[in-house]
């Protein structure tokens, strides 16, 4: 237990210290959100209609892109070798790293959502709905993304290959996240159904992610 706590504490400390992985994720989120109106054109009604979609896309990209170095950084400096050798089961160590990443990079996104909602002309309910779906859905993004991050170590390749491998897996999360937000906003469709699917996806990924990541790390080191 104390080993996992130490790992989580270290990862959060590093994320907050070096130029702030957390801060940078939020900045990226902000920039993508600000960029959208430029791309879409300054039509406020359209914007607030697209609002949840834009926020979810921004969060998806931001959390995937920060994931990229989740394991490669540890691989390059040799830490990963020691983590694999240690007495802590590798699955738990992977889960701990993902959790630390979510705390340092996922939570700040959710905290920033209300501010961005203002920029996109979303009202209170809509912002709340997006925030709630993000809270339920971003763990799924982190924990499926972790699989890609582990593969990136095996492949000696980070960045885009990772994104390509992981994006298809995160599409369902995106679909249900946006669907739940839209349902809450329009009020005509039930919010519960997509939201509970979203939670189910998160729970499933909480189990599958660490196992798949540990398997790929164990077979991939050399």
């Amino acid at each position, binding site marked *: 237990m*104390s*080993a996992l*706590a*130490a*790992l989580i504490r*270290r990862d959060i*400390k*590093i994320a907050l*210290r*070096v130029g702030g992985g957390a801060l940078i994720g939020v900045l990226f989120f902000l920039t993508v959100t600000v960029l959208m109106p430029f791309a879409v054109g300054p039509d406020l009604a359209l914007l607030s209609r697209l609002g949840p979609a834009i926020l979810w896309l921004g969060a998806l990209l931001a959390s995937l892109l920060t994931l990229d170095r989740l394991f490669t950084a540890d691989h*390059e*400096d*040799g*830490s990963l*070798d*020691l*983590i*694999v*050798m*240690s*007495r*802590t089961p590798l699955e738990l160590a992977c889960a701990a790293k993902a959790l630390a990443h979510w705390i340092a990079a996922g939570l700040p996104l959710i905290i920033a959502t209300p501010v961005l909602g203002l920029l996109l002309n979303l009202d209170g309910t809509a912002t709340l709905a997006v925030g709630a779906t993000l809270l339920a859905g971003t763990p799924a993004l982190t924990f499926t993304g972790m699989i890609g991050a582990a593969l990136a170590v095996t492949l000696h390749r980070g960045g885009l290959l990772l994104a390509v491998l992981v994006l298809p897996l995160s599409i369902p999360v995106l679909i249900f996240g946006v669907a739940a937000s839209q349902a809450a906003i329009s009020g005509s469709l039930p919010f519960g159904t997509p939201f509970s699917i979203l939670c189910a996806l998160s729970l499933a990924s909480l189990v599958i992610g660490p196992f798949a990541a540990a398997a790929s790390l164990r077979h991939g*080191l*050399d």
Partner: protein
Amino acid sequence: MRLSGRNLKCVRGGREVFSSLDLSATAGEALAVTGPNGAGKTSLLRVLAGLLVPAEGSMALEGGDAELSLPEQAHYLGHRDALKPALSVVENLSFWREFLGGETEDAGRCLAAVALDHAAHLPAAYLSAGQRRRLSIARLLSVRRPVWLLDEPTSALDAAGQALFVGLMRDHLASGGLIVAATHLPLGIDARDLRMGGAA
């Protein structure tokens, strides 16, 4: 305690690096793995550390903790030093001390043992090559593990550092540990030689 490997074979990138290799070392004994560049010394250590899966053969630590595997009872000191530039020297050491767990030693005392205590609060990014190596060695001291797997441990160390490290290895052997070290230079302690063949 006895570390033994039988009929080990290692394949990397589709090429056989070594095969039918046997080795054994008992408590208090050091094994110096020598051989030309590319002979497979690093590969052998990584096999023992459980980081490479051998294509054939098996290894075991008899007389160790029966519940733990060989890698879980070993320290590995490789070319890459597992240091985070963003953390300070003492933070780096404390993390490994807590994460590796088991019987631990005070971090400050370990730093003093490698003459790095004056730099304890410096970010690891600021360390010179030899200072980084000393910090890695402090990791070996901070958590007790019976088996030390060392890959060219003295590289980058100055004369004082080497003398100091020889003393640490002696202490480890005297307390019943065992050492497998890949090296091109004399280790400075009594060691049995395991010579590996192969081309540059």
